[in-house]
């Protein structure tokens, strides 16, 4: 946990356009050595573009960035020596075994055959892939694939690690495994830049969070600061009868003066409130109408709600578009 004042990653005014689409519209960021920056945003927000620029895979149209003190364009070779990259783009070879993938990277980095093998064995053990080490990567489960991706990015012992959506599509158990690994890497002093669509993930891992939307940074700070920035509490009401959901939503809307969000799956109505004064009004109206509730609570906003407050839309609603974009790539 070496939290020094040194800056591991610094970017100023990064802009990247693809034709008429602006992927990044001027992004500044700074990651102190040994810390974790969580870059949060829906698909298409520019997260991956930022990672690709900082990983020397893409040149920015304007702006500049340094990683470990080296310029990502002019000293790309130096940058590549100190970074590790894992994500939806930089992946392993599915047609080779996990062990061979790791040995290959060791050899490419100029290590001897023996050292490459030893490193591969060590990483397989560390990521609990020893038994699967000789199977081709295509046969791995999602969680095993991500662990192998991570292992592959660690062959060169990078001091700066980019993780582009490391847990997207994983089940909770596999996700916890990846989180644990990331935490251990940070304990060893690795600087991590993590992109995610999951607010929970950024909250759990990051020292600071930047929220991207449409190629811009719309908010940044520590997780707690972001919650404070949204500055609201949330009033949650769950009717005992799901059929009453609409009626409850109408009552909350009248009492609070804001249109609430209705979570049909969990049968819950939520509305942002500035204080607790509307709570008795809601209780009285519910009582008048004879609607029984299983939950009535005033709580701090989740990061999802913070995201909604900051960007005007939820992270969830863009997921459908994200799937379509992915298919068209």
């Amino acid at each position, binding site marked *: 946990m*070496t939290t*020094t004042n*040194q800056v*591991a990653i610094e970017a100023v005014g990064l802009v990247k356009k693809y034709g008429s689409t602006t992927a990044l519209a001027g992004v500044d960021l700074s990651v102190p*050595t*040994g810390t974790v920056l969580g870059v949060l945003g829906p698909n298409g927000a520019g997260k991956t573009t930022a990672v*690709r620029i900082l*990983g*020397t*895979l*893409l040149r920015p149209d304007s702006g500049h960035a340094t990683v*470990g*003190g*080296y310029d990502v364009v002019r000293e790309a*070779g*130096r940058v*590549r*020596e*100190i*970074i590790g*990259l894992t994500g*939806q*783009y*930089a*992946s*392993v*070879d*599915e*047609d*080779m075994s996990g062990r*061979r993938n790791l040995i*290959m*990277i060791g*050899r*490419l*980095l*100029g290590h001897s055959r023996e050292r490459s093998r030893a490193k591969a064995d060590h990483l397989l053990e560390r990521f609990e892939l020893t038994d699967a080490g000789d199977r*081709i990567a295509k046969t791995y489960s999602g969680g095993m694939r991500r662990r192998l991706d991570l292992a*592959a990015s660690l062959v*060169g*012992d990078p*001091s*700066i690690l980019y993780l582009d959506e490391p847990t997207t599509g994983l089940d909770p158990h596999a996700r916890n495994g990846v989180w644990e690994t990331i935490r251990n890497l940070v304990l*060893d*002093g*690795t*600087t991590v830049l993590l992109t995610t669509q999951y607010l929970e993930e950024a909250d759990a891992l990051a020292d600071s969070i930047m929220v991207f939307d449409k190629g811009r940074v719309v908010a940044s700070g520590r997780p707690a600061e972001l919650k404070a920035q949204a500055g609201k509490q949330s009033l949650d009401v769950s009717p005992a009868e799901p059929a009453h959901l609409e009626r409850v939503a109408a009552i909350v809307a009248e009492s609070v003066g804001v249109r609430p969000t209705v979570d049909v799956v969990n049968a819950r109505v939520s509305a942002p409130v500035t204080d607790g004064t509307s709570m008795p009004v809601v209780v009285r109206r519910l009582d008048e109408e004879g609607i029984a509730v299983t939950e009535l609570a005033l709580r701090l906003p989740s990061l999802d709600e913070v995201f909604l407050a900051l960007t005007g839309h939820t992270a969830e609603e863009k997921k459908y578009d994200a799937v379509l974009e992915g298919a068209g790539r």
Partner: protein
Amino acid sequence: MSTAVVDAPAHAGRRTNPFAWVQQSLTLAWRNIVRIRQNPEALADVTFQPIIFLVLFLFVFGGAIAQGGTWHDYLPYLLPGLLVQTVVFSTMGTGVALNDDFAKGVFDRFRSLPIARIAPLVGAVLGDAVRYSLSIVILMGTGFALGFRFGNGVGNGLLALVIVLLFALSMCWIWVWLGLTLKTAQGVQGVAFLVMFPLTFGSNVFVQTSTLPGFLQAFVNVNPVKYLVDTMRALMLGGDLQKPLLITFAWMIGLVAVFAPLAIRAYRRRT
């Protein structure tokens, strides 16, 4: 553990060898060979296809083309030509495979590593030399089983095989370039067929140039495939070697000189 900035020089010291790119290319060639072993069904285009082509063309057209003779008489003419066609066709697999690697993100991993920019391309080409060799061995093996013999000495015959392999290694840079430029593997394949069919059928692979109409003869006479086929026939069966060999070498040098730099540029630019 120390900080990032302190770590950097230790890593930088690793790259003092100016020939590191050779070792990196060999490592990546090894990768391609390992992949072939794990995925033998991907070899259909260089294993069964040559056999099927040889048998089909030999028995379907042999009687007609040999003018009164049988397929036995057609085999010595057909085999050197078909060898060229087979090898030239198998070069497009290099582009398709590269495009696939890019789509799957494997090349982004390579690009994020501190290795020579040319290494992944040279590695892909060297690895595919194994595929080309395999197609040569299988086609020639089938030909020998059907009664083909080197009529101009075994040494010259083997030299022919080396030259056709070198030609494939030169020509595949076209597909490396297209594989990196076009969006999908299907696109690469589509363009490849569009180029390959006129190039190989519009030649002296199957019939003598003199039997073709004038406009086609004009095309055949500028087609590098013709000169490579002439070289093969001269070395395997006898005949004039010097002119076709020189033209073939000129084409090989030209193909590499034009398409290797284009490929490297496309690799650098690809995002």
